[in-house]
């Protein structure tokens, strides 16, 4: 896969200008909470995202309970846990996609580069531009392949054809799908196979130059070959982006991620380097889950 060369090319100036001013809400310095427990507080070098005592309620039902964790830049962090444990909810807190759901209430803080993302002064569209997302089910827009990629740039004010052409090619190469679609960029994106659609969605996410990409069970609807391609792609993307992946699949978490968080019933049970967590879990619950005793 020839993705790396293109990802390493310096960005053109136009891309710099489209980087939005992500204005901070004045965030207080991070408090060290739950510092004592090594099971959930590993040493994270260069944290780009810090979640601090985050709780979330869907109306009356509490879905996340006092979760605190930091995520490393240019690493892959995986959230694992049984269905309904809150891992997707946690992921959707990071780009505030839960805002769309009525009756959601949040306490605690999420800091992205030291700025509180839930602060009223935070510009949500600028935030989402810097924290991209790939969904469980591929969701290409009912447009051409080209327009799917160009869409993000267009809404952020880039309309020059030459720039868009370059972004489209770079993004599609970055998502390792360029060779497959370069001759039919004007065809409908809905005509692609499931795996291609999912890689197209990844290309769409990286087209706006985010810092973080959230992946919500990106392979759950794909066959093993397409899954392998996505996993390989994630390894490449890690060079430039911080990846956070929610997965059901423990093998996948252990294969691709650097850090793994295990959630259960809305609580963070264990968080640490993937190898350690899978080989020597500190908690009994983690061990039970990863050895397949429940979940």
């Amino acid at each position, binding site marked *: 896969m020839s993705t790396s060369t293109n990802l390493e090319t310096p960005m053109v100036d136009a891309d710099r200008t489209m980087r939005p001013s992500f204005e901070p809400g004045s965030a207080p310095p991070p408090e060290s909470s739950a510092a004592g427990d090594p099971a959930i507080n590993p040493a994270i070098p260069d944290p780009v995202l810090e979640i601090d005592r985050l709780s979330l309620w869907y109306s009356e039902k509490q879905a996340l309970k006092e979760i605190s964790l930091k995520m490393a830049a240019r690493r892959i962090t995986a959230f694992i846990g049984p269905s309904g444990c809150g891992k997707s909810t946690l992921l959707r807190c990071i780009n505030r*996609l839960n805002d769309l759901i009525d009756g959601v209430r949040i306490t605690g803080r999420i800091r992205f580069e030291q700025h509180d993302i839930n602060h009223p002064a935070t510009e949500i*569209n600028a935030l989402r531009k810097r924290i991209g997302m790939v969904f469980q089910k591929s969701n290409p*827009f*009912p447009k051409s392949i080209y327009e799917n990629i160009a*869409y*993000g740039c267009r809404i952020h004010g880039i309309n020059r054809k030459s720039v868009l052409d370059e972004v489209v090619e770079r993004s599609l190469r970055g998502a390792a799908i360029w060779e497959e679609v370069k001759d039919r960029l004007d065809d409908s994106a*809905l*005509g692609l196979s499931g795996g291609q659609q999912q890689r197209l969605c990844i290309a769409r996410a990286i087209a706006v130059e985010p810092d973080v990409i959230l992946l919500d069970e990106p392979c759950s609807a794909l066959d093993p070959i397409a899954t392998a391609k996505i996993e390989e792609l994630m390894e490449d993307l890690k060079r430039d982006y911080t990846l956070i992946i929610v997965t059901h699949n423990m093998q996948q978490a252990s294969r691709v991620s650097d850090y793994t968080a295990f959630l259960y019933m809305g609580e963070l049970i264990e968080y640490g380097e993937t190898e350690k967590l899978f080989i020597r879990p500190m908690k009994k619950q983690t061990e039970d889950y990863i050895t397949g005793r429940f979940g």
Partner: protein
Amino acid sequence: MAKNSTTRRRDFVGTSLTALCGGALALNLLLILGLLLLIGVYGAAYFWQRDIVELTRVDGSRVLGEIHDRESIPPTPDAPEPGERIKVRVGNRDLTANDFQWLSLSSVVDRGTPGDAVVLERLEWGNFYGRMVELRHGDELLASGGDEVWRRFGPLHREKVRQRDAVRKLERGPIGDVNFEIEKLRLETRRLELARLPEAELARRQEQIDGRMAARQAEYEELATRLFAARDELMAETLVMETADGRRKEIAVGAIVRALRPNDMGPLAKSGLYLSRIWEFVADDPRESNTEGGIFPAIFGTVMMVFLMSFAVVPLGVLAALYLREYAKQGPLVRMVRIAVNNLAGVPSIVFGVFGLGFFVYTIGGSIDRLFYPEALPTPTFGTGGILWGALTLALLTVPVVIVATEEGLAAVPGIVRAGSLALGATKWETTWKVVVPAAAPGILTGLILAMARAAGEVAPLMIVGMVKLAPALPIDHHAPFVHLERKFMHLGFHIYDVGFQSPNVDASKPLVFATALLLIVVVTVMNLVAIALRNRLRRRYAGSAV
């Protein structure tokens, strides 16, 4: 396992019910096909030239005409023998007052199809059936005797047709333009009176207008002289015709549309005539209070009105549906609005017509007149029925259809696609406008198709907001600003009603009803096919290639 009686009974019920459903469908299809066939056959037959028969009756009198119908006479005490009678189109309305005559078959002793029998289609008074006798230019005899006249008539008539076209061009072109200018100047004078300018300025401007007016008047006089001369020339030659019973009638050659000897025509010539009559029907203006000639203004009015309606109804309906589906908080209120919208579709159309008259015509149109056209008052400009008000009234009538179809289209766009757009940093509005609406476009077009089909067939509300029996001018012409939305218009649906039931000559115009109905169906079908083709293109573009 052997079937017991219960199973057999249940099988039987199932089979019969299936047959019943299929039968109901078949019946529906049969009814629709029958309707189309009926309209098609009668409508198409209207243009076919029949042979002319000459009937000699017992008393020696003769009748020349086309046989249009035949029916049995029920026996009466006076005539106990059941007989048959025929309906003959004898024409010559200027001589006999009736286009049609019923003849008892028993009174006919001889019938033939003479080759020299001629039917004239005339600009006025309908058809003339008879034989050619003389061709005259004033007192000068140009030709006499049936065949000689027939030979001379052809080239002369072609010349006259050219002259008639020239006269019409003169009337519609330069003379129409001058009249238009004169009317404009008259309104300008009136505007000046209303403007309350200082005395000197007023006089100066009035003088200007008077000067231009005088120039136009002179131009008009000159054109009028030319027109009268051309008309005189057009009417100079006359054709003397003799009816079957020997009466003579002089007819100006310039007033004849066609002269035919149908009994001498082969099938090929008749087919050519058939096509040329269809063309005349589609492309010409109506004559003789709509019972003859073409219906082009009605086709034009219908299509333009539907287009105007589409331009009004799509934005209105789509925006309303967007708010209902994408922005409004779903709850009892929205549910009630939705029910109300659905019920709006069931309100009798005449109610919309009355509303259109009160709101669009009198309130909005009246205000426009007071604000922008005070010089024309008391003659209303927009304050009377017009094609714009008709289109807007129908837009109100059809907006529920568009709202419902658009809502369905919007609901079919998966939520995850919206989330995908929001996750890229798009605002809700950008997501709606750039992702959701394009994806729902086929649904919106479905709504438009339904709305157009409904609007094209709607007559009742239009009768009070601008549709007329005969519109003097099309809503689009070469006078600036080219599109005249305040003008009244003709409509195929109303034309059917008018020709079929308000016409002084119902017998003659009955086939026209079928022909017009056929054309209305064709027009609606064509418009729908265009919209459907557009929708399919959109579907192909947005949907996967596999679908």
